């Protein structure tokens, strides 16, 4: 697991460096979990990436901001809005479930997605986010390219 994690993080960092400007990243690990945090610039946008590998689950956060506005945010956090979309209701029986979803329009709208990878996020971003300051228009529904991941 340690080797696979290191290799995965290395690939993410390499791709981040080749895609974004002014990339900064930190990693940390305990005997049971590892975390990678990256931030960088993509044209006029700021990008914030978190990958937490914990209890055999990959928890991810891929956020694109323009100033303080969340243009898009892919994550699989236990968000009640995503839980309600998936199960029709929220409550203690659904608490803690990891639901892949996409926030748009400064987090005023939310869509369920398939589990997203960093590579899939880059692919989606290049298809949907213009480097210039022009309004991006309506983002397309994400299609995640298949990739082999340890999780």
């Amino acid at each position: 697991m340690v080797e696979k994690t290191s290799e995965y993080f290395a690939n993410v960092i390499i791709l981040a460096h080749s895609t974004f400007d002014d990339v900064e990243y930190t990693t940390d690990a305990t005997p049971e979990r590892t975390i990678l945090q990256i931030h960088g610039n993509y044209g006029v946008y700021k990008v914030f990436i978190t990958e937490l590998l914990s209890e055999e689950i990959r928890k991810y956060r891929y956020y694109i901001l323009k100033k303080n506005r969340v243009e898009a945010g892919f994550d699989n956090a236990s968000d009640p809005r995503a839980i309600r979309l998936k199960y029709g209701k929220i409550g203690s029986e659904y608490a803690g479930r990891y639901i892949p979803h996409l926030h748009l329009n400064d987090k005023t709208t939310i869509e369920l997605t398939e589990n997203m990878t960093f590579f899939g996020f880059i692919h989606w971003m290049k298809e949907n986010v213009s480097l210039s300051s022009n309004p991006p228009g309506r983002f397309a529904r994400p299609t995640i390219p298949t990739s082999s991941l340890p999780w």
Partner: protein
Amino acid sequence: MDTSSAVIKNNYIEVLYSFGKDLQSAVDTALQKYLIDLITSKIAELRKKELLFEAKYECDYQSFSQNISESDEFVINIEENVNKMWENELAEWEFCYKGIDDWSKKLRNILLMS
């Protein structure tokens, strides 16, 4: 048990022998102390970060992670008044909170080895 080898400087070995100490047990003791120091520093670092999150979100990790997944009002309040990108911080907070446990278990294992 897996083992590794290392090169010890002769200067250290000579001084050690002059104290009548055994090389293997001296290395084991020194490494154990060093690791205890590293681990306790790490736990302190994680706890410091955890305290920052507790102060920012005004609750502990368990309460936050429960409330955030069960209450629309809680999420809206957090996004409007604390941090719109709480998901990123929650991941780091989880790492700190659970990481303290991880390292504490490792510390106990090392202490039990003496």
